[in-house]
């Protein structure tokens, strides 16, 4: 009867398996061990005093892979049994060699006899301190974590504690210009996949010791490093606490990218608008940190998340800040208009042509109607189809190998576009509108926001086709209601626009002179609103200023009350 039920339910066999793991905790070759059981078993394992046993356990747990390099040798005058473990590809071979040389030569006098493991450990530690950062590891879990972070681990006969030395030397992509956020006059460095390089990139820009970093390890299997960075004393403590709490609350098996974290911690998971700002640019992150925001870094991702974000950040490009004020402002307003167009233009076109053609000037209307003659589809279907084709092309363009890339654009633009018009399947105005929308949508500096805009565009085409301009208004109001109810980490999403904060308009549509931006954003920088003293407008040369100072003696007034 028992075997029957076990066959039917499998329940019995599972409990049996658990019992079995209990008494055979160390048999990691057991095929029936599930991953969580393995993990738990590894966690409970401490290092023993026998070197041989330790090595065996490690080999057994890891399946003795080829990249696990174990070098056994006799070190010191006493010729103590020692092993150096490290993972290929995680360490710098030169450093490993230097450690080996240092220990293997037997040049130091250690009071070491058999069973004096701790003494040996201390001696090694003292010796190695000059060459690498060291730490002690007492369990298999710690040992493995150290190794996957680029450490080499020394194990000694007779010591239940191993010594991990930092020999990190990962191979990484070089620091390159960010591909998703280009800039002409700005700095050319972008984040890469290395956690500490990314931190260094930020710290190079903000060198104060008050730039704090808190590290987390996320993902039970991936054990990814994540960190939050903020300027202590500038970022609101509640905000930092909130971010810390949300990040440390994540319980999952793996974090493979910053978007995983994003999905776990955003305020409204059902919104199509991004609520955390992903960026590849260290200058962007530095700017955000200086406004009192918090950056969330993730290992193995060139994207850093910034929280809280507001809508205006999506349409700010780095170049705004590196050009003159007028150009910056013009570009920014252009971008806002383009963004509006990229969402609404096809919808409005469809709406007007379907319901309100009297709104167009007569000449224009005649032209469009003439061009549309003979086209078998209604305008809405036409626009929808062409937008779909465009999305197809765009998606294919991203996925295709770079060599074939140009081919698709030729096929798309010439063959499809030209031929479709020639054949009278679509009218030229629709193609113009779609092309315009496409160009406009590329001006949005943030990629993930561009995607949101794409989805909205289709909805607006539908609304425009079914209900005309009334539908467009309906949709626009719905989007507005939604966005103004959104919050990112408690901060309103449409921040300087609604709630209206006129003071922060200096960085919304405008991009005012740097010397005039003397306050931080009202909501974020509340701890210290003033960024720089007023009255720093460029003045004539120093000599004249001196003269003025001596004659008036009131130039420094701003320092007294900024």
């Amino acid at each position: 009867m028992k075997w029957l039920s076990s066959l039917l339910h499998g329940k019995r066999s599972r409990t049996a398996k658990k019992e079995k793991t209990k008494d055979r905790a160390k048999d990691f070759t057991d095929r029936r061990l599930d991953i969580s059981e393995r993990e738990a078993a590894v966690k409970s394992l401490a290092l023993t005093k026998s070197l041989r046993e330790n090595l065996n356990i490690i080999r057994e747990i890891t399946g003795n892979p080829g990249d696990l390099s174990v070098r056994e040798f006799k070190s010191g005058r006493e010729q103590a049994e020692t092993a150096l473990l490290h993972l290929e590809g995680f360490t710098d071979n030169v450093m490993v060699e230097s450690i080996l040389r240092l220990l293997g030569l037997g040049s130091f006098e250690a009071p070491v006899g058999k069973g004096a493991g701790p003494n040996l450990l201390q001696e090694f530690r003292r010796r190695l301190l000059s060459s690498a950062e060291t730490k002690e590891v007492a369990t298999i879990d710690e040992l493995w974590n150290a190794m996957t972070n680029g450490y080499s681990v020394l194990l000694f006969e007779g010591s239940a504690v191993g010594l991990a030395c930092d020999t990190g030397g990962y191979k990484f992509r070089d620091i390159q210009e960010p591909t998703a956020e280009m800039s002409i006059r700005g700095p050319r460095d972008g984040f890469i996949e290395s956690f500490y390089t990314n931190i260094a990139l930020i710290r190079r820009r903000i060198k104060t010791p008050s730039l704090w970093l808190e590290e987390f390890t996320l993902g039970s299997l991936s054990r990814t490093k994540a960190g939050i960075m903020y300027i202590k004393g500038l970022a609101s403590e509640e905000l930092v606490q909130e971010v810390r709490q949300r990040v440390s609350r994540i319980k999952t098996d793996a974090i493979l990218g910053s978007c995983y974290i994003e999905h776990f911690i955003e305020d409204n998971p059902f919104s199509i608008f991004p609520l955390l700002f992903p960026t590849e640019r260290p200058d962007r992150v530095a700017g955000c940190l200086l406004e009192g925001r918090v950056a969330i870094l993730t290992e193995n991702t060139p994207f850093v998340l910034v929280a809280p974000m507001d809508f205006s950040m999506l349409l700010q490009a780095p170049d705004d800040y590196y050009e003159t004020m007028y150009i910056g402002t013009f570009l920014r307003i252009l971008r806002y208009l383009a963004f509006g167009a990229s969402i609404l233009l096809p919808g409005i076109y469809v709406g007007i042509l379907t319901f309100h053609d009297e709104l167009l000037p007569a000449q224009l209307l005649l032209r469009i109607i003439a061009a549309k003659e003979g086209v078998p589809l209604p305008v809405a279907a036409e626009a929808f189809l062409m937008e779909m084709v465009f999305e197809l092309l765009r998606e294919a363009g991203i996925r295709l190998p770079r060599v074939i890339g140009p081919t698709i654009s030729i096929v798309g633009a010439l063959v499809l576009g030209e031929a479709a018009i020639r054949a009278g399947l679509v009218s030229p105005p629709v193609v113009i509108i779609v092309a315009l929308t496409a160009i406009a949508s590329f001006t949005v500096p943030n990629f993930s926001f561009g995607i949101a805009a794409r989805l909205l565009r289709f909805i607006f085409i539908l609304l425009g086709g079914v209900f005309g301009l009334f539908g467009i208004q309906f949709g626009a109001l719905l989007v507005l209601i939604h966005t103004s109810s959104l919050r990112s980490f408690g901060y309103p999403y449409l921040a300087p626009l609604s709630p209206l904060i006129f003071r922060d308009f200096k960085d919304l549509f405008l991009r005012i002179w740097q010397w005039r931006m003397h306050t931080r954003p009202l909501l974020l920088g509340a701890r210290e609103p003033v960024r720089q003293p007023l009255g720093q407008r460029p003045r004539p040369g120093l000599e004249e200023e001196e003269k003025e100072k001596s004659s008036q003696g009131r130039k420094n007034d701003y320092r007294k009350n900024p």
Partner: protein
Amino acid sequence: MTTEKIHNRQLAFILFIIRSTVTIATLPVLTTGTAAQDAWLSAIFSLVAVLLMILLVGGLGIKFPEQTVVEYSRELLGKTGGTLIGLVFLWYFLNIAATEVRIYAELLNIVFLHRTPLIFLVSSMVLLAAVAAVLGIETIGRTADALIFFYVFFLIASLLGAIKPFNPVNLQPVLARGLKPVLSSALTPAGLAGQYLVLGLLIPALTAPRKGVAYALLAAVFSGIVLVLTTVAVIGVLGPELGNSALFPFFSMTRAIEISDYLERIEALVVIAWGFGVFINIAVFLYAGARGLSQMVKIHDYRPLIGPMAVIWVILSIHTHENLFEVKKFFEPRSFFPYSMSVVILPYLLLWVAYLLRRAGREGEKYREKRPREPE
């Protein structure tokens, strides 16, 4: 109780939009009165009425900065009296807002979407408002913040457009028939000032309730200016006769605007601005109504009430009036003014009296309490 707050500025925007939308929508000065070319004078008179109204509603409101009118009326007049007054106010909200959606939907139906059923237009607008009201007064305030730019821009654009076809002769003769028609024309817009009843429900949601009245007055003055300007523009462009008989005078005016050969259709702007205004209007009324009702029946959260209320509104706005002419009749000064006044002013006067009596009583008590101490 919800702890949602709106800034006083947002209140001012909301009130401005509500009031100006009435202007765009019906321009009742012209369509219902007999003032003809002197209608702009009536607009000024109605402004005075509006200011008085705000003092009446807001003045009592800031005496109870933590409570809505539903709550303090119960405190002042007892349970039955308070509930009755609350019901009356609720009815007024319903009636005015339903009428307003109806007018908007009628316009859309007549001008743009000929074959779309009225109920569809009405219900989609109410649906939007309901979504906003469920998200809370904070969201409504923020939407008002964001919309005010578009709104003012559209208003200014259509007013500026009116400069070219403007004919000053249309405004003459001034006061040819004396003050009487002017005053009678002012009655309907003055009666519509009952909209400021929302103040009684919004004051406790303000960040600085005590300054609420000042902001409301400011909003009223600005919307009064808009009313006067639009009246002048309509008369100047269309003339008193056409302005009087047109169904949507402001809309007809913008139709007459022709800036150049290519820019001759700016009435779409007006309709969009109008849509924004109607949306804010119903959203606020829906919120205020639901909030008031929830306090009346002592429910903690007003949100569950919004769904059923929205449905009732849609039905009401379709079935209260058979057609647009009945709506127009509804706004006639002879009937609308007494109706509006009796619904809004009478209860408030009652509340004021109760309040003053209570205060007098309390001060008497204080006086009596203090007196024995004086000799010490």
